[in-house]
């Protein structure tokens, strides 16, 4: 940490809040407390909850714990409490002393690391404070002891909190709670884990009315809505915690690589800039190289490996690598032994790494705030600017990088708005509540409403969820006798039997992992294709890979994994056997576009940039030329308009449009448009989508059809496609089924794990696709289908964004009929065949396989 302090002047009244021993401790280290650290102390002394917004390296964690440390530094008697001994562990025993502060982190590694960091000031000041962690790795004996004799400070995760709340002695354990500290809150609230946490908070507010919250967050677009998360909402009014903003971080220095190479038209690998990236690593002490997907990380790492003549210590880090392997990289990094780490979002959050002097972001930044948080990883010293270099992988990404840099300079944020709480998570919570003390529907409903994401939950949705938890929520009331929770004479709900409770405990949590398979490196069959020789057993584990990816492969296909190109040999139980391949390029691309689409905010800035020619001067010459050519040849899309180009090529007819709404929304649009084009007899054959554009091709001449009034673009792109067409597609959509699967697992309809048998994650008890099909036909308004639709709208199908776009472009469609492909269309056209077309497989795919047979038979 730095010895230079940014806040040499400290207001004396807040400084007084800090007891002598703390001031001495700071002074002994040559530090003085930062303003925001004292501000949080002041909020605590006023009994207020607060949200601290601060960049990485601002001493956020210490700020969060300072009020607790100060309070606990006074002897118990002075705090107006008796001694801390208590023997009885029955219900409703109000203990004195006990758990004072709960700390929640999204990562268990972070919780463990923070515990270690807290030990230093506690030991050095000799404070009488006991700190413990509780994660999935904590031994049972210690967990039991923690419930009986809680520490002063407990560091844990949202899932462990849910488990603690579902136990009988939750009232005993939490009634003494004074504070909850929520770390990395900006990251937690964007997912269903945040929903679960918010429901846990609601419960805590009831069990410990005196509890106050401190949220620690990176900079977000809407701090007020995040501040609501920290306060119980009452009577339909929005209540927010106080907001403390830490200032003083030096502005980052962000540049775009001005490549000397030819900028690629398409692709995401940025291979053209390999040499320049390698030079960056060479010139800096430690460089973090962020990429958007696991396979990109794999490929880039492999490329560095090939060119590493200087023997630089470069490592690879992503979520599918073996855990031990990842820890090794993290330790080497902390010890300053690495020059570069190629990584994915697996390093977006987490433990402080110390001295990283450069962040390189390869490919599209996707969002301004996300990029800013990554850049913040570069330097954990507030007073020095972080340095980052953006490497666009293609021409469109140049535009995206340009506007992201501008956004960062303006400190503009584009974090998503606060979620509306999901019903499947609520179902899990309701079951958890029934596992603890029995509850009355009226009371639990009132409690749930205090949680910000659920503040507008309707009573009928709540009742449907309770009904679902009890008997499945089916219109056909045949499961009364199989109810999982039952009402007693007073109307209080409780679990029907201990097995339900066990099952809840095994299945708590909202992280639904993709079904993963282990990848094992074996010796190839040898003897060339067609040989059926034995595959060598034994061999090294390379890591894990998504099952759906493997399902698309046939034996002999090559792909990149674990930093090398491997050949798929066979699937043996839950292991994928691969052998080393000598091919230079993998046959099957595994770029799936990354988890996050281009943010609406950056997309709009890209459209503005395109529309405003004066801004083009800030772009590299190659890109300027490209855009000028497009203007000359076709037209450059305006801010609000939709440009559609049609042209013939190689016997087919193409239609390319440029909505700039991200890959997910474009895929959905592609699915719906091909249905409509089919009906209009334009005979579409396929489509491909990227973050900026959508290309559809077919046998029908769309230009001709438009000219002769047989097709109308205004009607084709009319928002009513989100009506019947969408419904018809959803019936068979694999994306929708994937979404439903996660709702079915989270809500507890289908258990992921069973008592007594730890099944492998791959084997889910029952195919959720079959449930989806039957439920959709027989009870289309079932609460789980509603939950899945809400998820799909915001998630894999991005319906909301598509809907907004369709309304935006009404009356603003520009059609250019061209003789051949336009400069702007080249990138998306190049992706045809290069990327797997993520369409719905159906009869065509089966017919293709059947045709191969016919060909074979005909010789």
């Amino acid at each position: 940490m730095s010895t230079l302090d940014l806040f040499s002047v400290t207001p004396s009244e807040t400084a007084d809040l800090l007891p002598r021993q703390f001031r001495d401790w700071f002074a002994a280290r040559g530090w003085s407390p930062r303003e925001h650290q004292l501000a949080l102390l002041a909020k605590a002394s006023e009994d207020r909850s607060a949200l601290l917004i601060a960049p990485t390296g601002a001493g956020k964690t210490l700020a969060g714990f300072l009020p607790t440390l100060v309070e606990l530094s006074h002897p118990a008697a002075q705090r107006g409490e008796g001694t801390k001994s208590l023997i009885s562990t029955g219900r409703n025993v109000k203990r004195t002393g006990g758990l004072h502060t709960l700390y929640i982190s999204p990562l268990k590694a972070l919780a463990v690391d923070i515990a270690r960091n807290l030990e230093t000031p506690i030991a050095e000041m000799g404070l009488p404070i006991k700190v413990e962690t509780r994660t999935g790795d904590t031994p049972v004996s210690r967990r039991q002891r923690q419930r009986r004799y809680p520490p002063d400070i407990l560091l844990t995760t949202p899932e462990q909190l849910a488990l603690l709340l579902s136990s009988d002695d939750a009232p005993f354990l939490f009634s003494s709670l004074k504070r909850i500290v929520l770390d990395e809150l900006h990251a937690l609230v964007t997912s269903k884990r945040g929903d679960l946490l918010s429901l846990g908070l609601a419960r805590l507010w009831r069990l410990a009315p005196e509890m106050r919250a401190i949220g620690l967050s990176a900079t977000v677009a809407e701090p007020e809505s995040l501040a609501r998360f920290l306060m119980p909402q009452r009577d339909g009014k929005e209540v927010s915690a106080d907001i403390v903003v830490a200032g003083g971080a030096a502005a980052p220095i962000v540049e775009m690589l001005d490549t000397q190479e030819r900028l690629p038209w398409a692709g995401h690998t940025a291979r053209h800039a390999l040499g320049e990236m390698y030079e960056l690593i060479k010139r800096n002490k430690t460089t973090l190289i962020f990429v958007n997907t696991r396979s990109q990380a794999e490929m880039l790492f492999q490329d560095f490996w090939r060119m590493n003549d200087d023997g630089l210590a470069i490592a690879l880090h992503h979520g599918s690598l073996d855990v031990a392997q990842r820890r090794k990289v993290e330790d080497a990094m902390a010890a300053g032994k690495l020059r570069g780490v190629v990584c994915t979002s697996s390093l977006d959050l987490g433990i402080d790494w110390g001295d990283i002097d450069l962040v390189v972001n390869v490919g599209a930044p996707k969002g301004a705030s996300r990029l800013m948080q990554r850049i913040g990883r570069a330097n954990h010293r507030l007073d020095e600017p972080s340095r980052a270099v953006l490497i666009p992988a293609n021409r469109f990404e140049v535009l995206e990088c340009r506007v992201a840099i501008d956004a960062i300079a303006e400190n503009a944020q584009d974090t998503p708005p606060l979620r509306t709480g999901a019903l499947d998570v609520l179902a899990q919570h309701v079951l958890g509540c029934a596992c603890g003390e029995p509850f009355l529907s009226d009371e639990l409903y009132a409690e749930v409403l205090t949680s910000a994401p659920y503040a507008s939950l309707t009573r009928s949705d709540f009742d449907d969820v309770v009904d679902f938890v009890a008997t499945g929520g089916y219109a056909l009331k045949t499961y009364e006798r199989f109810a999982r929770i039952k009402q007693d004479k007073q109307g209080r709900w409780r679990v029907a039997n201990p097995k339900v409770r066990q099952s809840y405990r095994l299945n708590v949590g909202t992280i639904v992992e993709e079904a993963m398979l282990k990848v094992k490196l074996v010796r190839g069959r040898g003897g060339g294709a067609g040989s059926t020789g034995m595959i060598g057993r034994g061999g090294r584990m390379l890591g894990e890979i998504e099952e759906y990816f493997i399902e698309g492969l046939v034996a002999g296909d090559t792909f990149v994994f674990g930093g090398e190109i491997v050949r798929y040999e066979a699937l043996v139980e839950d292991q994928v056997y691969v052998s080393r391949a000598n091919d230079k390029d993998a046959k099957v691309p595994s770029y799936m576009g990354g988890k996050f689409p281009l943010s609406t905010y950056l997309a709009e800035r890209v459209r503005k940039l395109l529309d405003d020619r004066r801004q083009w001067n800030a772009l590299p010459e190659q890109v300027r030329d490209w855009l000028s050519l497009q203007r000359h040849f076709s037209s450059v899309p305006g801010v609000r308009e939709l440009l559609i180009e049609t042209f013939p090529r190689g016997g087919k007819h193409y239609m390319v449009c440029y909505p700039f709404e991200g890959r997910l929304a474009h895929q959905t649009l592609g699915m719906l448009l091909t249905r409509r084009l089919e009906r209009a007899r334009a005979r579409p054959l396929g489509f491909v989508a990227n973050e900026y554009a959508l290309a559809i091709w077919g046998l029908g001449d769309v230009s001709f059809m438009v000219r002769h009034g047989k097709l109308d673009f205004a009607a084709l792109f009319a928002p009513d496609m989100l009506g019947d067409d969408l419904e018809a597609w959803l019936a068979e959509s694999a994306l929708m089924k994937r979404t439903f699967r996660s709702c079915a697992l989270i809500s507890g309809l289908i258990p992921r794990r069973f008592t007594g048998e730890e099944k492998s994650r791959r084997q889910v008890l029952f195919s959720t696709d079959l449930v989806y099909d039957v439920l959709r036909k027989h009870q289309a308004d079932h609460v789980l289908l509603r939950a899945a639709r809400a998820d799909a709208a915001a998630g894999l199908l991005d319906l909301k964004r598509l809907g907004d776009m369709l309304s935006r472009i009404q009356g603003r469609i520009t059609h250019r009929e061209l003789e051949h492909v336009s400069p702007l269309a080249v990138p998306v056209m190049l992706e045809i065949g290069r990327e797997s077309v993520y369409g719905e497989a159906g009869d065509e795919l089966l017919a293709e396989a059947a045709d191969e047979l016919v060909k074979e038979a005909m010789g």
Partner: protein
Amino acid sequence: MRAAKVMVADVRFVADISGALFWQEQRLLVVSDLHLEKGSSFAKRGVLLPPYDTVATLSRLAAVIARHDPRMVIALGDSFHDREAHERLSESDRDALSAMQARRDWIWISGNHDPALPSDLGGTVANEVAIGPIAFRHEPTGAAGEIAGHLHPKARVATRGRSMERRCFASDGERAVMPAFGAFTGGLSIRDPAFAKIFGTPGFMAHVLGDNRLHAIAASRCY
């Protein structure tokens, strides 16, 4: 092609896209592995699957019966998911079943899930049935001229990074294994050793149930 020709021991069958098999000359319809009341069977154990599987399965069965108007129907075993499943049939499902059984012979072959069916279900209960050169039984033995179920065959086909998985008939001209007909029935890949045991070689065909037609694909091409 909502139907495809499947030969078993020189008898010509029509495989229906619903997963049923029809013997034109005999006007005999065969369906296998209905697994009725599978939903409520899970519900008993605390997994509250939708209680609509029986009605879904029966209505599909009624549709295929209406299409072929068979003289005789054989349900090839595992018609009920557990031994008490028939007791949980709703009134209306019972009525639907009776309506289908009217004016035709109905044979319940017993399976491992429903080894002891009561007599009040209508129709006849049997362990197996032989008609001409064809033997109908639940569990396949690999004998020539056999039509069986039990294994729930499904086939996965992959090309260029896309894949799909569907139920299928498995057949080599001498014997056939039928797909499961029930709404809640999963499947077993035809590349599982269980199929190699029955067919001896991987040289058999999968007649895969597509969206609108059946597709004949070599089993060796599937996963």
